[in-house]
């Protein structure tokens, strides 16, 4: 129908803006790094030694950068500490606070493990296991925060958001670890395994992103509008260019072809670094599209 809103008040356009996007990225990096480190340690500590170490430090670093950003994003930042003694079982942010703190602690323990500290040596399983659970929590609580927000935001209400965030965290962590290793001196032989793992994750991510957009697009007229903002509206360039092509298709191609092409099954560090950079751009774009794009449509 031909209807136009001729007067409305200026609502809060994006309650969750760029700082939150950065937080989502960093929290994904933190959680994914811990899991990467844990996986590397648990599968084959010797073969994937560099990965385990780099990822363990990444996890802590990401959290140390992330927490101040989170505090700065609050409108009453001086009250952040109240989160330590106030909480709600139904609030994702309460859960998020505790898993982040927990993960911070456990990433310290993990680093101590990697440094060979005697005190923690015996509890490797618990540290890595429990820590991974917390890391998973860190990766996913942000998706839950979006899901739970309201059914009135179609992009956010999609159940596939949680797996997308899990995959995104893994992708972020592996890409960053790859990048650091490829720029370093040792451990380059681990790159191919990282590369193929990431390729698999990227393919999964591509499928899930397409599902997200497709299910939203074919829903009610309102959800179609929400999807259209991303596929053909303000976010179109970023989505098709930044995410699909640069962030997913090209890296998939690079990682796949280089891992099967080389006879030794090795991937060149240059390719690995390039792929990592593109992937990181793509993941950041994904976070931005989902957070900001999901808020673009006016509510009632």
């Amino acid at each position, binding site marked *: *129908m031909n209807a136009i809103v001729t007067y409305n008040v200026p609502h809060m356009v994006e309650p969750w803006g760029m700082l939150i996007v950065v937080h989502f990225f960093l929290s994904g990096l933190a959680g994914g790094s811990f899991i990467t480190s844990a996986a590397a340690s648990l599968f084959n500590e010797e073969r994937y030694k560099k990965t385990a170490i780099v990822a363990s430090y990444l996890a802590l670093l990401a959290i140390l950068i992330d927490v101040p950003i989170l505090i700065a994003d609050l409108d009453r930042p001086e009250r952040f500490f109240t989160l330590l003694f106030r909480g709600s079982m139904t609030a994702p942010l309460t859960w998020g606070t505790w898993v982040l703190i927990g993960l911070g602690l456990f990433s310290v323990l993990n680093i101590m493990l990697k440094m060979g500290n005697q005190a923690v040596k015996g509890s490797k399983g618990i540290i890595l296991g429990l820590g991974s659970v917390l890391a998973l929590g860190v990766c996913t609580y942000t998706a839950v925060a979006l899901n739970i927000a309201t059914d009135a935001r179609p992009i956010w209400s999609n159940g596939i958001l949680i797996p997308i965030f899990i995959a995104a965290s893994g992708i972020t962590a592996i890409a960053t670890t790859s990048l650091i290793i490829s720029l370093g001196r040792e451990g380059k032989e681990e790159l191919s395994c990282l590369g193929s793992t990431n390729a698999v994750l990227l393919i999964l991510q591509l499928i899930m992103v397409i599902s997200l957009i497709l299910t939203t697009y074919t829903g009610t007229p309102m959800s179609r509008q929400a999807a259209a903002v991303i596929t053909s509206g303000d976010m179109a360039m970023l989505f098709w260019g930044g995410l699909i092509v640069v962030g997913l298709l090209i890296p998939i191609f690079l990682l796949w072809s280089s891992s099967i092409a080389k006879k030794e099954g090795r991937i060149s560090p240059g390719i690995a670094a390039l792929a990592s950079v593109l992937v990181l751009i793509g993941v950041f774009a994904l976070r931005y599209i989902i957070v900001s794009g999901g808020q673009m449509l006016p509510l009632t």
Partner: protein
Amino acid sequence: MNKNDEYYTGGKKGAGNSVRYGMVIDLRRCIGCHSCSIHCKTENEVPVGVYRAWVKYVDKGTYPNVRRNFLPRLCNHCEHPMCYRVCPTKATYKRDDGAVLIDNDKCIGCRSCVTACPYDARFINPVTKTADKCTFCVHRVDKGLLPSCVQGCIGRARTFGDLNDPNSEISRYLAKNPAKQLNPATGNEPSVFYIGLDESVEEERGGVTSVAGTQREARKEAI
């Protein structure tokens, strides 16, 4: 964790003598004068640029068959408020009588509630830097007065009262006139009802163009 939990009825309706405050807005009587909005502003000292109550205008049709509809808006004080559920400090709470309120001393400004509200009723108050929204003027209601928007409505379009009391003005009014809630599919169970709701005022997200386009454009002020 604190006594706020006592105040959440969890949506119990008509349990014993519990009061459930609600409002009916009869859109046949609304003239779009913004009096409700400005009365609220002066009563609650709302800063310029943010609104606890406001009136949306939607034009529909093609010349010369054009109509204009008004949609006076406020917080719907839902029975199952998502804003309550996502607040990490329980600054947002729901009173026994249905009013959903904010404790400005507890709010940390994380804006989870602002994203969680399907009705765009919440905002961050630029002066207190905490979440803010319509309070059903509980400071007046507790003294036996009407909320300021109800008092100020020239067309007498708004009725406020106890939805749980079958003999109250509002219940009788609802019984006589079919009323709708906004976007009931969210499951929040709003306590604000509209009589004479035209589909165009809500359909804007479903294929209606906003003069201001997306939310971003609204801030840029196209006209």
